């Protein structure tokens, strides 16, 4: 058990203790400087409302817009994720919240819907995605049947549901969705203080979406404590990893120009070191930063809606060694926790709060835990017809096996050959051995794709032995799409949704009653499909259209045209009786007198 996870778990435990209150609101910001001058900022907002007032549409902290959507779509539990970038587990350690509050790249949505049958559930699911699409300004409406799956074992409800409910789990992803400020604004509007006060004032679209990795989540779940009434809980989280150096660049001069010669930090011990020759030196000092530098503004007090039964409830926590110098705004109460790395601050209401960490030589570092499992998924092979998927699972632990569920959704135009599923195992000795898949895979849940209707769904319950790397490979075939099915940027390739890995029975989940499972998501993939030269069909279409327009048009024109004299045409074209008679008259008059004028 390591510090970081204990840190997350203490927070989880703290949160769960507060969860029981029937109607309340809490918010919190965790700051954790990571190696390589990164800063993890984790914002959390949580409010409860009693089930009864939720059903009666008495919303206080719970956002009405979302609540009505959930009621309309009979959604009992909802999880929505917006993520960009990738979590660099090698440098940053385990994921915040053990990965349970992040999604794959793009948008991920899963929900438990109360319905009497699969079809009804799907209809409600479509209602839900369409409504959320409008609410969050995201293309969630593109989650159609081909992108919807029904995972069997990968997800478990996080809330307490009455056993009678006919709950259906539906899951959809949009790996290509670009998360940006238009998704942040509606997200902020769901908060009681709407970004005007409290920790949410730090949200600046420019900084948030400049982060190296960023994840926004919305979770709604019913909770029924053993005593007391059931509550509906909404929890919103924003996690981001900022590059401190980049965030500190002034807004008006964001270009990382080469530093002036005299500011270059050189290794002066090198014999060749001179005015024009410099071997750059690693800085041994930890970068200094402050909230206002990194986020571009100060934290604006406390959200007055926060229910504080405890007047000393701390809203900002920082995870640096206790001997690290930290300066805060006046009137802030600092509490250091026993683990030696965490300190929390109780802010004064309606006073701007800033936190300054000066540059300081590194003396002690917050230890980073090794991730439980490393996973990498890539597409291998080349050519337009076939390819292969390679998934590598590395278990860094020397002692314990890792059991987990591997869940992937494949688009229908990627046709996997499950019979080609092979596994190799590499131990610490580096020798690669092929082993039967059944040795690694305990259970398989497989739902094959139907062209243009649904994608492949594959869930594998697996176990990777200690100190070994398991490689799973399978071959696939690329389908040829109809030419109208290609997107405008067909040559970019097609996004394949990230795989979701849920660690089962890990020491982390074992220790807590909290059901906060450990999740890992792989990066999304780009699948190049055989793409026609689109200019060619369009050229042909344009050419044939031109030929038809010219050739057919002229000939048709000649064939159906009646050649009449101008005055007759007026008569023919006239609709009313009067006009016709007039036309006739004109024709007769011209017949009588027309010759004369022509001769003239």
């Amino acid at each position: 058990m390591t510090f970081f996870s204990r840190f997350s778990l203490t927070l989880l435990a703290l949160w769960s203790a507060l969860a029981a209150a029937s109607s309340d609101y809490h918010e919190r910001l965790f700051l954790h400087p990571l190696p390589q001058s990164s800063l993890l900022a984790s914002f959390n907002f949580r409010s409860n409302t009693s089930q009864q007032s939720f059903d009666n549409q008495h919303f206080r902290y719970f956002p009405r817009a979302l609540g009505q959507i959930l009621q309309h779509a009979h959604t009992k539990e909802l999880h929505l994720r917006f993520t960009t970038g990738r979590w660099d587990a090698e440098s940053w350690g385990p994921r915040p919240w053990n990965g349970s509050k992040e999604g794959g790249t793009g948008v991920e949505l899963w929900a438990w819907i109360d319905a009497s049958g699969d079809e009804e559930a799907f209809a409600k699911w479509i209602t839900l995605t369409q409504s959320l699409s409008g609410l969050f300004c995201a293309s969630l409406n593109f989650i159609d049947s081909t992108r919807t799956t029904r995972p069997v074992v990968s997800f478990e409800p996080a809330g307490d549901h009455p056993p009678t409910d006919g709950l259906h789990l539906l899951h959809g992803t949009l790996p290509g969705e670009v998360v940006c400020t238009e998704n942040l604004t509606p997200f902020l509007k769901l908060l009681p203080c709407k970004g005007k006060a409290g920790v949410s004032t730090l949200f600046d679209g420019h900084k948030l979406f400049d982060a190296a990795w960023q994840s926004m989540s919305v979770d709604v779940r019913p909770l029924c404590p053993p005593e007391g009434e059931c509550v509906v809980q909404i929890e919103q989280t924003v996690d981001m990893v900022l590059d401190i150096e980049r965030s500190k660049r002034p807004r008006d001069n964001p270009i990382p120009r080469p530093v002036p010669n005299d500011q270059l930090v050189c290794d002066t011990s090198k014999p060749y070191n001179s005015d024009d020759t410099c071997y750059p030196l690693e800085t041994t000092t930890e970068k200094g930063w402050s909230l206002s530098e990194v986020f571009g503004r100060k934290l604006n007090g406390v959200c007055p809606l926060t229910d504080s039964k405890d007047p000393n409830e701390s809203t900002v926590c920082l995870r640096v060694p206790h001997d690290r110098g930290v300066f805060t705004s006046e009137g802030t109460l600092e509490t250091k926790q026993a683990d030696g790395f965490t300190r929390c601050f109780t802010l004064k209401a309606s006073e701007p709060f800033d936190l300054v960490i000066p540059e300081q030589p590194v003396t002690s570092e917050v230890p980073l835990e090794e991730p439980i499992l490393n996973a990498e998924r890539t597409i291998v092979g080349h050519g337009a017809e076939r390819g292969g998927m390679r998934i590598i699972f590395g278990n860094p632990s020397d002692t314990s096996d890792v059991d987990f569920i591997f869940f992937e959704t494949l688009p229908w135009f990627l046709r996997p050959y499950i019979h080609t599923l092979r596994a190799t195992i590499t131990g610490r000795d580096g020798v690669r051995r092929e082993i039967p898949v059944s040795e690694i895979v305990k259970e398989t849940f497989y739902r094959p794709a139907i062209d243009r209707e649904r994608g492949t769904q594959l869930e594998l319950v697996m176990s990777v032995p200690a100190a070994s790397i398991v490689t799973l490979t399978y071959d696939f075939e690329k389908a040829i799409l109809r030419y109208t099915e290609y997107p405008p940027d067909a040559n970019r390739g097609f996004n394949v949704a990230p795989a979701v890995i849920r660690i089962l029975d890990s020491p982390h989940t074992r220790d807590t009653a909290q059901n906060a499972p450990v999740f890992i998501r792989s990066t999304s993939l780009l699948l190049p499909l055989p793409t026609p030269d689109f200019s060619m069909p369009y050229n042909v279409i344009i050419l044939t259209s031109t030929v038809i327009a010219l050739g057919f048009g002229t000939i048709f024109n000649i064939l159906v045209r009646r050649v009449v004299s101008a005055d007759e045409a007026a008569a023919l074209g006239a609709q009313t009786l009067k006009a016709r008679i007039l036309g006739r008259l004109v024709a007769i008059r011209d017949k009588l007198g027309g010759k004369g004028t022509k001769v003239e």
Partner: protein
Amino acid sequence: MLAKIRDLRNNPHLLFVRLPNLLSLTCIVVGVVWLLLLPLNEYSRQTYISENALLPGQVHAYFSGSEQNVFRGYKKELEGLLNEGRDQGVPPAEAGQTPAVSSKIQSILQAAGLKVATQKYEYTSAGITHEGENVYAIIHAPRGDATEAIVLVAAWKTANNELNLNGVTLALTLARYFKRWSLWSKDIIFVITPDSKSGTQAWIDAYHDMHPASVQPLPLKSGALQGALVIEYPFDHRFQSLHVVYDGVNGQLPNLDLFNTAVAIANNQMGIGSNLQEMWEHDDSYQARLQTILRGMAKQGLGYATGAHSSFMPYHIDAITLQPKGEGWEDEMALGRTIESICRSLNNLLEHLHQSFFFYLLMQSNRFVSIGTYLPSAMLLAGNFTIMAIALWMRTGYYTGTSSTAPAIAGDKKEKPSSKKVTSGKPVADVKLKESGVAERQLALPLTLVVGLHLLGLIPLWLFNTLPHQYLPTSAYAFVIVDIVLPLVLAALLSHGLGLSAPIIPQQYHLIKSFSLLLLGLSLSTLATLNFSLSFMVGLLCAPLSFIERLQSPSKPVRSTISGIGFLCLNLLSPPSALLGVCWYTGVSVETVLTQAAFGWDVWGVWTQVVVWCVWWPAWLIGCVLLGASMF
């Protein structure tokens, strides 16, 4: 007039012998002339950027100032290690491969904040082992998701086997500099390989999981590769212009947009001149343009890797090498800014490069001809064989040939039947037609022979790709002898009957030639769409084969003399003699060429040898057999 036309139509000799010969000759002449017309302004086009997303040269390149100090620092550091290695007796060629250098590169890249990994590889070809260790590092695109990547390669040994110290240093400096930028939408991978021949091949194979067992898999990967740039800077002085190398393995070319981007950025944004195909003095004259095209065609036709970038092409990754050339006033920072600007352009790409041409011949850095314009020339050359083959097939069916009346068709087709003979041929032909009508074709022997000889080509293919390098020149000379003896033996066997059935009849000679040319025409026209230059070259070398057949008419001594001379001339055009001739002309040793070819076959997957031994050589052999048969 009408009667004359009717006479012509009724003249089977004209229809089956003269007309095809004429048509074939016309095809060849037009094909060659077509190629010679390409450099003219009317047939070539100005290059242009087709992919609008590239926006070459639209950004300011900031790589300058104190980055040069860092460059010098890295260079001194590496130089020190190289000198240490030299003192310890490491040969200069292996200078970049010492563990000290490798670990220094890794530590520099790590210090710059990149993810670093290494890959060991080993290839054995023609009894020579090529091994080394690639060091590569990835800049993760901020906010990126490892879906796309750009590759920057610097090899310790350039394509010309020079020590590329400045190039490697520049790559390291750029890695440190690029890491600071947050605008990258794609990962950037820096690959430092020991040499330009095998290192990138091992890396790119392993990246796609297509590597042989002797190559380690890659521990670290990114997404789909969108483009690759190879940096070379093997000298210490300042340079004048940039030489852009673009030829890939098997004549595959990168998308023209990539080349255009590099040229546009070098010429317009940086003010550096650009060269291609080693044309240092290009005055844009017809000769210079033609020479550039021909040099490009020679490289494309031979299909070998011209640099570290060539290995990327089979995986549909567009790549070029930038080589600074000449003495001028551009320094490494100018090269660095050029690379920065090209990377920024590639970074802009929303889709894989696909807009512009993949098949083109460049004649100047800003002029090219596209496939639609140049393809007919190789197709005409290939078509001449097909025309001949079809004519022979018809001739064997309808017109039994005339031992008495039809004039012999000699090897080079100099002697043409006089017009008198044509007119006088009419009554004879009428008689003949009445006599024979439709002839039955005896297919068994010709088919067996043609198929057998094509399969026989697998033997030299196997031999030349497996023999150890020291035996390769000897076997090439031995093959010259084999090429003289084998056709004569076959011809003697054919003419005197194989002891199997009836002795061979003239019709079967025609059928042998027909099948051989049919296969040749088929292969070459298919090849023309894949590798235009190779098809054109083989087509040109095989052109005499259309007009060779077994001589029949003159008396034996005359026949023997003519066919003997023809046989000798034809032997000068055989694959091994052509190889020896080219080696003698260019002054490269035969062993080097053959070792390189074997290396290409084993490592790069070059299939020029297949075309030579299974298309060209069998066709040539059959031509020789037909000519040799006249002697018996």
